């Protein structure tokens, strides 16, 4: 087990290097720092001095990969690649355009992101499984049929509609909760209710349908027939036998996203004005703050890889048949 985990962690290193190279190519090779400076300072009236100053402020005034004005190791370390890309492995993300330290921002913004993403995840998982089980219990009846129809309809609605519609109906029309904002401590609850509900509803269609399929597939297995042949009531078959076995594929899908919860949900956070990582990223995209976007790409893929590792480990915990070698 430990052997396996160590090997997986080692395997993650080349992938992270790959991610790093991709972001480096995207941000510094496709467009030279000069291009980016011109873009940010305005296309037309921009002086070479302004570009040089812009690059100096951000530390972009160095060669990309190889610095031949320096000696020894400095030939490699005093380059954009080393200072901007390779440094991310040490979680040195540098500074955003407004001068703040990105690593510190990420740390403080993680909490609000989690405060909205974690309830959505847990509540969603519970609600979806319950609804999927109900549909499976009433399978091949009108309940099931219209349930599937409803799921397809829910899937076809844009996520933006849920947010805008929810804000309008609950906050503006009924004045139940504030439209947007965020508070600390217990105060936060009233700001979080609406985003969480909307988060659960907007994922409902696809997830319930997907879980229903998993349950139905499980229902066709031999052990279910055996359980029924023993005379067990349908509810016990469903909740004790089928549910437990169906948890394996459900967990695979769910555990992968757990680390990504830190990133929060981009759209909801910016609509509800929650100061999390999602709205941070969107603000950075809108103000073209490349350093922040770069940092978030790296962080996102790091978390995804952690998620994959967790999935593999959780397999062994829920399914005794799987041995990791």
């Amino acid at each position, binding site marked *: 087990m430990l052997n396996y985990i160590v090997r997986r962690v080692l395997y993650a290193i080349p992938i992270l290097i790959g991610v790093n190279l991709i972001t480096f190519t995207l*941000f510094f090779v496709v467009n030279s720092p000069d291009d980016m400076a011109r873009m940010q300072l305005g296309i037309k009236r921009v002086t070479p001095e302004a570009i040089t100053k812009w690059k100096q402020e951000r530390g972009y005034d160095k060669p990309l990969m190889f610095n031949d004005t320096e000696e020894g190791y400095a030939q490699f370390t005093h380059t954009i690649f080393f200072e901007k890309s390779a440094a991310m492995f040490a979680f040195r993300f540098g500074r955003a355009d407004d001068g703040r330290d990105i690593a510190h921002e990420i740390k403080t913004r993680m909490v609000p992101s989690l405060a909205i993403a974690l309830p959505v995840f847990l509540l969603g998982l519970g609600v979806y499984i319950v609804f999927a089980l109900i549909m499976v219990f009433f399978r091949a009846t009108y309940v099931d049929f219209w349930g599937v129809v409803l799921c397809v309809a829910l899937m076809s609605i844009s996520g933006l509609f849920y947010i805008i519609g929810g804000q309008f109906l609950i906050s503006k029309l009924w004045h139940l909760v504030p439209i947007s904002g965020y508070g600390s401590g217990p105060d936060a609850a009233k700001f979080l209710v609406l985003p969480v509900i909307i988060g659960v509803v907007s994922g409902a269609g696809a997830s319930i349908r997907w879980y229903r399929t998993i349950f139905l597939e499980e*229902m066709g297995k031999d052990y279910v027939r055996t359980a029924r042949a023993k005379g067990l009531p349908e509810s016990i078959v469903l909740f004790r036998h089928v549910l437990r076995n169906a948890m394996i594929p459900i967990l695979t899908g769910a555990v992968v996203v757990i680390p990504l919860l830190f990133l929060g949900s981009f759209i909801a956070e910016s609509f509800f004005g929650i100061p999390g990582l999602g709205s941070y990223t969107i603000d950075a*995209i809108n103000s073209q703050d490349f350093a922040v976007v770069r940092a978030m790409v790296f962080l996102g*893929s790091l978390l995804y890889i952690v998620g994959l590792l967790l999935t593999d480990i959780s397999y062994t915990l829920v399914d005794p048949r799987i041995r990791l070698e």
Partner: protein
Amino acid sequence: MSFKPVILWTDALVYLLVAVIIVFAWYVRRNEHLRAPWRRVIRSASGMVSLTVLIFFIAVGLLDTVHLRPAVEKSNSANGERIYSVDVLSLFDLIAGPLRTRVEKTYSAPFAAYLYARETVELPDGKQVREFPRLEFGGAHLQDPETQLVADVVRRAGAGGGVGLLLWGVVVASLTTVLARRDGKNFLPALFNIWRGTTEVPWKAICGMLALILLLLGAALALCGYYHIFGTDKVGQDVFYQSLKSIRTGLVIGTLATLMMLPFALFLGIMAGYFRGWVDDVIQYLYTTLSSIPSVLLIAATVLMIQVYIETRTELFDTIAARADLRLLFLCIILGVTSWTGLCRLLRGETLKLREMEYIQAAQAFGVSHWRIVSRHILPNVMHIVLISTVMDFSGLVLAEAVLSYVGVGVDPSTISFGTMINAARLEMAREPMVWWALLAAFGFMFALVLSANLFADAVQNAFDPRVKILPAKAGILPHRRRREESKGKSVSSTVEDSF
């Protein structure tokens, strides 16, 4: 009127796609084993109803794809050379001419005769009052909108709907005649067959949907010449026109992104599965790396960079449309490049399975070249996966466009799309009374498009996925009342619909 045809990049690719589909359809028609699953699609009522809706969307989208630059009326160059307008119009723009050109001052509600905002108006006697002025075009033919408006709308809608239904009657009658002639029956029995729903193709459902579409279309067409049926937006443009224009953007993104992804996914996926060894390792590393970057972030980063590229090289494009189009194309490419990993993984797995089959081993023993084995034996046997994932991805991509445009990494702001419509209308939520029509129109059209795409995708999946066919038999172990319903809506898919 003289004009100069313009083929933008996405137009060319759409034409290519249409050509590919026609060749594919012709090929399928000639091969019985390929026709069999399609026949199952044709028998599915939900699939055919959604296809009917989709055809109307596709028709609008195709009309909007044929671009041209009309000549400027008065040519003032000496040598008789024509000067062409810098506005790139499409065939659809020409048809919908009045909708495009009849621009109000600012917002106006659906079917309104008055502007949304008060304006200072000078009365004939020189006094100035703040009031809601009449619209320049919407309901301009009415003497006294307050009393006449409702009656006029109902009358025109009724007339338009009536014409629509009449057209529907003609279509149904000719359809019945064709069916009757094919089966060697009389007209009435054939009509009766359709009514009872005993035809192989679910004509009854299709005709029902067609009636609804033609009724709504007739009413909308009759009204849109006199009113802004979905209101106008901030700069006074007709929202109905914008919604129709958005269809093309949605369709282009939904189809071209997949078209861009297919070469990567097919080539790399089959290579990895077929050759195994180090080729497999490299390709697996490639797609693990790419898929480990959250897709929104990768798309955002790439679009940001393309934006810088386009902005710093404005001299490359002669019209705004060409620039916006290039950005749309890049968005499709980016969506394709970031989403090929899922299909690639599926194809690799399937190829790994296939290459152990006896017929491929036999081919290898006969010394058939790798290229021939892949193209003759493997490629046709993975095509169903490609087809299923293509139709499944479509709706997700249409939805993704709206989200990306909101984030600011979607289409060019000058391109009319559902995303840009929603983005513009969102800011007006706080107004009192609320400006809701643009939002609702965009969401409504998007819902119709995505829902029909989803239902059609389900029908295709049910027909092509070999696993689906096994399921109804297995699930039917327990005798139940309605077994027919059970095979519906069962999809075995792990596609992440919308990962944002």
